[in-house]
């Protein structure tokens, strides 16, 4: 056991010390922070009125007088100033603007003057109010009872998606669940691949540099394989943890205004049970990683160089790729459909399939338990098979391995 720890330590430290690892570790949160900052900046500039705006209204038609209502950060002041004089006043005040309504506003467009380009919020508000007033005026002119009409208009139907679960009903935010589901599928798919391939490359490195024989004269091949898998897995977990922590810090710093874009998006995410998803993600990452990395290790042991791995990689990665493609096309539309349920039970496809389903909620506990149980059985099984191939493969040189050969290795005695 002591030796396995030594191997884990080496595998972990040599990888964590690499420049590429540190760069990746910092680059991702920085990128995220940069994007947040950018979004926040753009949002601030166009969407939100950060300061009170004063709109001087010159109403030559007299149809809107006293009818424009002050809104949040917008104040309307009726005035009789001639337009030229009013325009001159704009020059020293950024928060001041002029609304010029001509006598016949239907023919000559209504004009809006300001020092800077006005925000959409401001012009939108003005437009909405004026349309409302104009249509009211038209109705009055045609003797339509506006009070009645207003009442009729109030019959607004809104559909709110409610989900019936054992604990009662709750809001179902389908869009967010979909996004999180797909994101989880992509993330788990990529990480299984990236870290599995790292294990494989490590095995090939040991084999081609021929240090393997020195090492296995000190430890059992299984100990070496296990140490490598756990070591690389810990590197993966470190990376995830660091990304999550750094990203939260970075976005907090970058997006300090609470109403800015990404924070708004994050707020809608709060309806989702994060702890639950994160827990499941970690479980499926760890077991899925153990399952696949053992196979990757076996592949690494069977070849002499990375270019020879192709023929073995394909069948191994096929179920993963297959589920991944299904996830982003079909599964997220029917997260509780038969296909999704079956795929989330088979250990080879479960990590991706289950992670698509979980953000939608509603995975029955018995299904989750069965799937997790299958994952554990699955990785124990692949580790056993892989270890038997690995112990023979690492000492074989120059022999082009085929599947037939691998089967033979599996049945070799010690």
């Amino acid at each position, binding site marked *: 056991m002591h030796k396995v720890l030594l191997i884990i330590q080496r595998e972990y430290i040599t990888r964590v010390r690499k420049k590429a690892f540190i760069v990746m570790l910092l680059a991702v949160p920085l990128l995220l922070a940069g994007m947040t900052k950018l979004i926040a900046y753009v949002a601030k500039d166009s969407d939100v009125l950060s300061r009170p705006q004063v709109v001087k209204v010159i109403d030559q038609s007299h149809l809107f007088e006293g009818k424009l209502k002050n809104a949040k950060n917008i104040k309307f002041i009726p005035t009789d100033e001639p337009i030229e004089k009013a325009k001159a006043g704009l020059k020293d005040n950024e928060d001041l603007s002029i609304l010029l309504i001509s006598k016949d506003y239907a023919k000559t467009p209504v004009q809006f003057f300001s020092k800077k380009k006005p925000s959409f919020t401001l012009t939108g508000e003005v437009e909405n109010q004026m349309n409302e007033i104009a249509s009211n005026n038209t109705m009055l002119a045609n003797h339509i009872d506006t009070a009645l009409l207003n009442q009729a208009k109030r019959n607004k139907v809104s559909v709110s998606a409610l989900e019936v679960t054992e604990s009662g009903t709750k809001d179902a935010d389908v869009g967010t669940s979909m996004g999180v589901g797909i994101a989880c599928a992509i993330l788990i798919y990529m990480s299984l691949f990236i870290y599995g391939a790292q294990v494989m490359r490590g095995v090939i490195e040991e084999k081609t*540099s*021929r240090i393997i024989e020195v*090492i296995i004269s000190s430890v059992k091949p299984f100990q070496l394989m296990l140490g490598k898998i756990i070591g690389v897995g810990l590197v993966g977990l470190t990376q995830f943890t660091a990304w999550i922590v750094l990203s939260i810090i970075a976005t907090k710093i970058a997006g300090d205004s609470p109403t800015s874009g990404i924070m708004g998006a994050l707020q809608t995410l709060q309806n989702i049970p994060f702890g639950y998803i994160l827990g499941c993600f970690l479980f499926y990452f760890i077991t899925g990683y153990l399952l696949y990395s053992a196979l990757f290790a076996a592949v690494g042991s069977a070849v002499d160089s990375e270019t020879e791995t192709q023929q073995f990689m394909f069948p191994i990665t096929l179920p993963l790729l297959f589920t991944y493609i299904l996830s982003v096309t079909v599964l997220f539309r029917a997260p509780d459909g038969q296909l999704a349920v079956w795929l989330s039970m088979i250990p080879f496809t479960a990590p991706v399939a289950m992670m698509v389903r979980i953000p939608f909620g509603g995975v029955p506990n018995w299904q989750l338990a069965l799937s997790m149980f299958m994952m554990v059985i699955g990785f124990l099984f692949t580790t056993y098979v892989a270890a038997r191939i690995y112990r023979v493969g690492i000492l074989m040189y120059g022999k082009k391995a085929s599947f037939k050969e691998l089967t033979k290795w599996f049945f070799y005695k010690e």
Partner: protein
Amino acid sequence: MLSIRNIVKQYAGHRALDDVSLEVESGKIFGLLGPNGAGKTSLIRIINQITAPDSGEVFFNGEKLNQSHIERIGYLPEERGLYKKMEIGEQMIYLARLKGLTRAEATERLKFWFKRLEMETWWKKKIEELSKGMQQKAQFVATVLHKPDLIILDEPFSGFDPVNAELIKNEILELNKQGATILFSTHRMESVEELCDSIALIHKSHKILDGRVKHIRNSYKNETYLVEYTGEQLTFDGSQPFEILSETTGEDNSNTIKLKLSNTGANDVLQYLLPKTRINMLQEVIPSMNEIFIEKVNLIA
């Protein structure tokens, strides 16, 4: 030290070792000889517990070979290598710790060896920055760092330049003097005669010869002698008490005959030749290990 009894190792398609038994005495240098593909590496891997025999047993100091012996064996494989991207000092310590040393012990001994072999400046270097010969030296240090009782060296001198080969040879002898048993496998016979106390010859998965080097060579004596004389070249009419194998004429008027006795002694040869010429030398030809090796191998083939 090491007692190997009736080892059989079967691979798919061929038998690598067939009923091989050996005794390696404690404190001696033992040579494991044989042509390529004879089964030497298979046997060494069994001793290192990298693979297990199909039948037969190995005893280490009288105990059946088990995991606890791993730390008492140092192994230098024929195909050598180290982690290319790892610093050499760190790597040596790692390998020693896998053999059960603590970090402190390993560091201390490594400093000693680096000083001894003049490698002190290499500590922080990565393996890929070292020359092949330097890597071999480092690998040798890794093999002996944990002070093993049994050192197994598979073709230890391949890849060394003559200076370093000599250096390593002296280190091996020194370790042997300090009590370590050395088992080394080679097909280079010169080093065998020079270093080994005993040998075993393996060919086509069978042991075909073993014993002390001196005994083996003496038992292969076949009454062959070399005679060198100065003067005019002699002619023989067939009445001489020996059979002529070859004749050579050297510079400065000297001639050499290689002869085989025919039911006579060396003295009879001298008596026959003395009146005829001036004899410089008479020497019995003891076959070299190389000759025995080739003879034995060809005999089987």
